[in-house]
């Protein structure tokens, strides 16, 4: 196939060719950045939390009428006993936060008592001897808390536990590969000994600026006696929805001087996850939808313009056919023409994509575009162009040679 006559013909409809090339370029720039963002969001939201989500639900409980700390302690114990004896429930514990909750405590963890010289940031979770079993965390070194190690504090007591269990990620950040069990860390001015290491437990927040330390968690053997806290409940396999539907009423029947929000007070972990990643999922949906419609519109635009060109050139096609050109010649003429325009488009588009990415990096703190996405976008648009041009090109190849003899 000769390129030169095609180029010569292109010169006669510069504007149309330029518009298609420009459209391809912009589509490429937007679609490959969108793909990149979608992939980033999906990676973010598919991070494992480290807990056994399929079997967990959480209850946010608030005691009514401001009971004192002693009273809260006994009511909490009564609740936990009741929950553990509920048929279908295998374990439960009380805490201030859990992975993906969206609110909790974070501390700078130091290797020296000076708080300003902390070595790593970490989420802090209140737990008792049932915490690890309830969450389904995997203990990879050391041991769990013992019942006699669980302390009780009120709202404003300093947090100075004698023992702590940390995650592998935090151990790495603090000790760079050395065994963590038995080492001393500082949450406050007093020393805390690490007695165990769990494989993974994500922090409560999903913000991108905390992503660097999203696996740094510390479990501390304390029960905080404040009026609002969470129960984490582990159910028998497959019973999580059933328990979630009746746990609120059951707790009220046990003691009605409490508030568990009818709407959102009891959440299965699937709901916790959906809530935590609502934004990421939303952006992924939006970007996918826009990318798809964009590709469809670009494809349709190519079909429209090429059809017009075919209609305009019926006579010339007839002449070519009469002079001996085969149907294939005509077909490949239009395919090649589109390929030339699309190649010009994706070349400009590649540059635009990188430029758009630079701008997005500045505006939204997203990462640098990986070249694979541009490549994937280029291939997608070239294929789209060829597919879009196929139908009009086939129609062109069926123009009979006799067309050459007709006037008007």
């Amino acid at each position, binding site marked *: 196939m000769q390129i030169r006559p095609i180029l010569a013909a292109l010169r006669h409809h510069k*504007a*149309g060719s330029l*518009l*298609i090339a*420009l*459209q391809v370029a*912009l*589509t490429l*720039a*937007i679609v490959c950045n*969108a793909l990149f963002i979608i992939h980033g969001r999906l990676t973010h939201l598919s991070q494992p939390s480290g807990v056994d989500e399929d079997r967990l639900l959480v209850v946010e409980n*608030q*005691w*009514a*009428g*401001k009971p004192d700390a002693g009273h809260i302690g006994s009511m909490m114990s009564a609740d936990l006993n009741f929950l553990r004896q509920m048929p279908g429930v295998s374990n439960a514990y009380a805490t201030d936060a859990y992975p993906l909750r*969206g*609110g909790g405590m974070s501390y*700078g963890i130091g290797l020296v*008592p*000076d*708080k*300003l010289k902390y070595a790593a940031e970490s989420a802090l979770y209140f737990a008792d001897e049932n915490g690890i079993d309830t969450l389904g965390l995997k203990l990879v070194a050391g041991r769990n808390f013992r019942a006699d190690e669980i302390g009780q504090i009120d*709202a*404003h*007591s*300093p947090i100075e536990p004698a023992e702590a269990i940390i995650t592998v990620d935090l151990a790495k950040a603090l000790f760079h590969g050395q065994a963590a069990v038995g080492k001393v860390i500082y949450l406050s001015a007093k020393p805390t000994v690490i007695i165990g290491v769990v494989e993974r437990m994500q922090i409560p927040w999903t913000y991108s600026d905390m992503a660097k330390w999203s696996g740094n968690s510390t479990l501390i053997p304390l029960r905080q006696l404040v*009026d*609002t806290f969470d129960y984490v409940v582990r159910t028998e396999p497959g019973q999580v929805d059933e328990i979630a539907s009746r746990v609120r009423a059951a707790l*009220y029947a046990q003691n*009605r*001087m*409490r*508030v568990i*929000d009818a709407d959102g007070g009891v959440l299965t972990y699937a709901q916790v996850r959906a809530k935590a990643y609502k*934004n990421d999922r*939303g*952006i992924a*949906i*939006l*970007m996918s939808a*826009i990318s798809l*419609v*964009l590709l469809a*519109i*670009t494809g*349709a*635009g190519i079909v*429209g*313009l090429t059809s*017009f*060109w075919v*209609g*305009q050139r019926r006579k010339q096609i007839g002449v070519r056919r009469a002079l001996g050109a085969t149907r294939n010649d005509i077909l490949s003429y239009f395919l090649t023409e589109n390929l030339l325009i699309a190649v010009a488009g994706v070349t400009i588009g590649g540059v635009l994509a990188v430029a758009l990415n630079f701008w*997005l990096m500045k*505006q*939204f*703190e997203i990462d640098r575009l990986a070249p694979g996405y541009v490549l994937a976008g280029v291939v997608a648009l070239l294929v789209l162009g060829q597919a879009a041009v196929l139908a009009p090109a086939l129609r062109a190849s069926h123009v009979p040679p006799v067309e050459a003899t007709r*006037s*008007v």
Partner: protein
Amino acid sequence: MLAYYLRLGLRSLRRNPILTTLMVLAIGVGVAASMTTYAVFRAVSANPIPGKSGQLFVPRIDIWGPQARTQGRRVPDMLSYTDAMALMRAHRAVNQAAIYPVGFTVVPQDSSVNPFAVKGDATYAEFFPMFDAPFAYGSGWDASEDEAHAAVVVISSRLNQQLFGGADSVGRTIHLDDHDYRIVGVLANWNPQPRFYDVNVYSRTFSGAPDFFVPFTHAVDLQTDTNGNSSCYGSAGRAPGWQGWLQSDCVWVSLWVQLPDTAAARAYRSFLKGYAAEQKAAGRFDWLPEVQLVGLRQWMDVEEVVPPETRMSLFLSIGFLLVCLINTIGLLLAKFMRRSAEIGVRRALGASRTEIVRQFLAESIMVGLAGGVAGLLFTGIGVLAIGLVFEPDIARLAHMNLSLMLLTILLSLAASMTAAFYPTWRAANVQPAWQLKSN
């Protein structure tokens, strides 16, 4: 003549239904995507208190020092209790109010009704005049009640509806947690969005109205914990208990001041500088703390009230609209040029270029109008689907209204006219002689 051209345009559009549908859909979809994301953007970036936002400021004091900067921490966006109280006592602004969010439970007398939770703010008397909060009954409390640490409360119209069926409840008593409060005022429906006055201490920026307001001084007396954020960077040696909490360098209080003009703002800034220098001289810090006085609109930026996702989707939609426009230019060009012969005949029969321009712009207006109708429809669907993409609190705020509808139609018309510009120019430049010759 215009009416005739419009009719002609409609007829021409009907001649190529597929091409026309494509153009109309492209404009409609492009406009709808932009308008939907704009509806969200408009909702979250709205001025919560127009007319007064220029007078409202937040003071910031860097009690964490240069060390925190090296660890990547910003100047704290909340104040410690110590500093908030010092600024309140100094009383250097027209109005000032320290604020922190609190939560209580209400135990109804009727034992068949379960206790329920209420959320509100602890603040000062000047909160209400400073933010122009409208009252349905009664009023806010006054400064003497702040000083007396009085157990008074202002409740929302919603809570008043729930507890008193909407009647004037001023003077009556409600029981919050384990204390009685005398109602001094019932707010009319008041819920500025974003909830600018405590975005730093309360995480739910776009949420329902607070149920109540109580005096800050009374809440502190009762050792009421903050229901919002707190940050205790670098305060290792905090004394135990409530007093230890109050005396610590933990930050958890929001503070607003009203300064009517730039002179007042300048004076307040220099007062803050003086305060910081005083604190350093007293030995509280090794460094001279940086102070800032941030205006409301700027504060919304500092607090990133507009989620990055909202801006990102708005920009993305505008890019999308641009591609749709280019698409429409191409299609219109094809459509117009196909009628070169017709144009040639019209020109030869004496129509001027201006007439040709009019004819084709009229046709584009028809495309724009049809695109506007499609755009309205798609925007309606888009606004309904906002909940799929954005958080419920934000989705609730974005809605279709008259101004959005008008804007949709206008944008469609503008888009189609922009797209028609070049094709029309080309059509007007068709040489009549050429067209007549070839036939």
